[in-house]
């Protein structure tokens, strides 16, 4: 027998399970970041490959939607910061060994490129918005309209940049987690490709949802089918990799093989998020029905979020330390007479 019990109080996250490091804010950001990356890559691809006329949603509307989604994601990222007043410090320094620092700088590059791509698609995608912006007092005719025209003229280089930055953003969301040696469940090089493929898959799913033509819906249905197969292969390799890992990795993967996250992982992510959409999108190959395509897309988006949620939650529960923690917040509360909840601050 070997038992390690805390003789003193320790309420640090990682030891006290109720104190999480990262919550829904980070899972949401990783999901929306991956989704925006997928939209950027496919939008850029339709422009570069000359499909823009046949895929109006992907070419013209997707960049603006991606911009809004990425903005929401950056908002939840900001919500997660414990010391929000120092947020500008991310841009006072590039720490080359920190993936989070690289990610902050990638976001600063992605945002303007995505915004210019959105402007380029505005006249065809959202004519009413383009008209409204063009009629803005003073800046409308002098700045906005010429800028939209300029973006339209340099659309191909912008699309190329968008693909490169989109792939960077998609991989980064996985590399951020896989860089932490201290969290065995995250410490797999497969996380980068897995998150990229998942991001592309959710991007394709949103293209199906918004598709302007039947041809566009079919195109992205077939693309998404391939991506789901690739994602299933990667997640299978990830589990095998963990099972063949050291003791820490084996106990980490046990969280999704019978542990606390098993149902969410297998029923939620693999079942609802990958297997059912796989069948639905395969059925779309023969016969396209809008409700089927819509259901498949919504499920893929749900699966994309569940992947991030399970990864973020499970990863931070896995650690090198393994104490039997006797810390009981209830006892601390009983010791206090003024009635303040000592854990209310968490």
């Amino acid at each position, binding site marked *: *027998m070997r038992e390690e019990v805390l*003789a003193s*109080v320790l309420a640090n996250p990682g030891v006290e399970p109720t104190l999480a*490091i990262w919550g829904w804010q980070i899972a949401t950001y990783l999901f929306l970041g991956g989704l925006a990356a997928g939209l950027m890559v496919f939008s850029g691809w339709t422009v570069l490959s000359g499909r823009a006329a046949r895929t109006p949603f992907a070419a013209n509307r997707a960049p603006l939607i991606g911009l809004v989604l990425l903005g929401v994601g950056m908002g939840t990222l900001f919500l997660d910061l414990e010391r929000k007043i120092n947020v500008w410090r991310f841009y006072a320094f590039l720490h080359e060994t920190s993936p989070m620092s690289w990610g902050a700088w990638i976001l600063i590059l992605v945002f303007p490129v995505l915004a210019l791509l959105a402007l380029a698609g505005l006249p065809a995608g959202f004519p009413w918005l383009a008209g409204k912006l063009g009629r803005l007092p003073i800046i409308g005719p002098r700045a906005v309209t010429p800028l939209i025209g300029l973006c339209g003229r340099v659309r191909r280089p912008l699309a190329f940049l968008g693909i490169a930055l989109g792939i960077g953003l998609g991989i980064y969301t996985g590399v951020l987690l896989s860089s932490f040696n201290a969290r065995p469940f995250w410490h797999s090089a497969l996380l980068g490709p897995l998150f990229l493929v998942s991001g592309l898959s959710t991007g394709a799913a949103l293209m199906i949802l918004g598709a302007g033509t039947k041809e566009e819906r079919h195109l992205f249905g077939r693309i998404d089918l391939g991506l789901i197969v690739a994602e299933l292969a990667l997640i299978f390799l990830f589990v095998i990799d963990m099972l063949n890992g050291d003791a820490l990795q084996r106990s980490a993967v046990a969280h999704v093989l019978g542990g606390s996250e098993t149902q969410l992982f297998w029923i939620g992510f693999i079942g609802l998020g990958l297997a059912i959409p796989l069948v639905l999108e395969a059925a779309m190959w023969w016969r396209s029905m809008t409700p089927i395509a819509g259901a498949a897309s919504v499920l893929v988006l749900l699966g994309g979020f569940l992947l991030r949620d399970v990864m973020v939650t499970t990863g931070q529960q896995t650690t090198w330390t393994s104490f039997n923690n006797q810390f009981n*917040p209830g006892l601390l509360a009983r010791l206090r007479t003024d009635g303040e909840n000592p854990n209310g601050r*968490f």
Partner: protein
Amino acid sequence: MTHYAMVIDTRTCIGCTDCVDACRMENNVPEGLCYDWVVEITKGRYPNLTTEFRSERCNHCSNATCVTACPTGASQYWNGSNIVVVDATKCTGCKACIAACPYDARLIMQPQGYIGKCTFCVQRVQYGEDPACVAVCPAHAMHFGLLDDPTSNVSRLLAERENYTLHPETGNEPNVFYLR
């Protein structure tokens, strides 16, 4: 690099947790949180049991992953030594360092929101004093000093006694040593 180390004698430690209380007093640690903690390890099978107490804290690793993971450079080495400190004016509270620490030694200071941790009491060490936990230990089980100096008490203890560090396989090169 000035190489500081802490050496803790598990043979004389009685698990009184005085080091934890001294740390709270010295560093104004928020209630319910701590920079150091004591673990009681029981091994064997009844009636042949052995107990060992271990006072744990940040290991002030020579290769600290919390320093490399910090996006803003707030988590840094103090004054060219291996003592890891957090610059609260640069810390965004992104918690990358908490995820990066294999010893779970970091915490969020409340209500300010920056990341707190054991600093080896740099405010005392810079004047040549021992950290509060070492100074207060009633069993004289804790020692602090320079590993660069072969005549220091920590260097001599490590040369004379069998010792170990926590999870050296992390590759972080921890600098809190335990004597068996």
